[in-house]
């Protein structure tokens, strides 16, 4: 199965309801497929975290598989320090993780973003 994460913007209370929903379904014995979500409090925060540069970084990293930050920087032709900052930020929100041998990787096959213009 493809590993999928959904990204969106939402308020703290509404987004927490999904946890309750999944809990209840699981408690009633329903078989539940793993679900992963990433929410931002507002669009500014989302766009600040997911810049075009970082999106390109994610794509390259996903295509190349686990690699070191240095080889990723070489691949992108960018400065190590900036790539490092980007990786740290993407790691923080869970779009990048570490392998056991200290390399970085993208644990996702699909990143689905949902943005609403009106509620």
């Amino acid at each position, binding site marked *: 199965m493809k590993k999928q994460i959904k990204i969106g913007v939402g308020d703290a209370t509404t987004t*927490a309801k999904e946890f309750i929903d999944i809990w209840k379904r*699981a408690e009633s014995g329903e078989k539940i497929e793993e679900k992963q*979500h990433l929410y931002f409090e507002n669009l500014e925060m989302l766009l600040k975290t997911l810049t075009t540069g970082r999106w390109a970084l994610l794509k390259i990293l996903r295509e190349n598989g686990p690699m070191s930050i240095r080889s990723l920087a070489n691949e992108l032709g960018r400065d190590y320090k900036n790539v490092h900052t980007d990786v740290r930020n993407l790691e*923080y929100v869970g779009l990048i993780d*570490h392998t056991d041998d200290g390399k970085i990787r993208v644990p996702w096959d699909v990143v689905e973003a949902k943005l609403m213009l009106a509620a």
Partner: protein
Amino acid sequence: MKGIPRKICLRPHRLARSRTPAFHAGSRGSNPLGDANKTIKAQQTTAELFLLRYKLLDIPTLHRDSIPRIGAGDAIKISKTRRNLNRAFSFTLYIPYGIKHHMKSKLIYREKFIYSDGSIREMVLWQLSEKTPDRPHQLKYRLYYGLKDGTCIVRYDNETGKGDHIHIKGIEKTYRFTDVETLVADFLEDIENARRGKI
């Protein structure tokens, strides 16, 4: 000039990443990587041994579920009950420590919520393979709220052996679980209070 290092580094040593991993990245708490598989493997091995035993003894095979569950540190002695066969078939299987409380758990939900100041809320839910008295709902959860630098402010979880409990700014308290709505509401209220500087 021999013996003097050519380059004296004056800047602080920069680590590849900070010592405190960002938000428990990669941390599995008390569910270390591969542990669940170890338990299953151990159980399967016992199951196979029991089946083998019954086969050798010519006892009708028991259903897999009726095979006793094993835990860490258990030494399972498998030997013949019939005297005349006693020496022919007897061995002991040791189950290593470290897998005692780790039943199989399956991640079913993980949500990260990023506040505009960079603090993070995480809500994670696992489905367990068995019901236990402290987790009759067969679910394991972790609700976390922390700052961007990795400081944990609020955490609710129901780790095995400890029951439902909360950590607020490093202080641990037991939590009386009623239902999931209350749990989430209490958690959100703690976050709100923390964000307003009330905790």
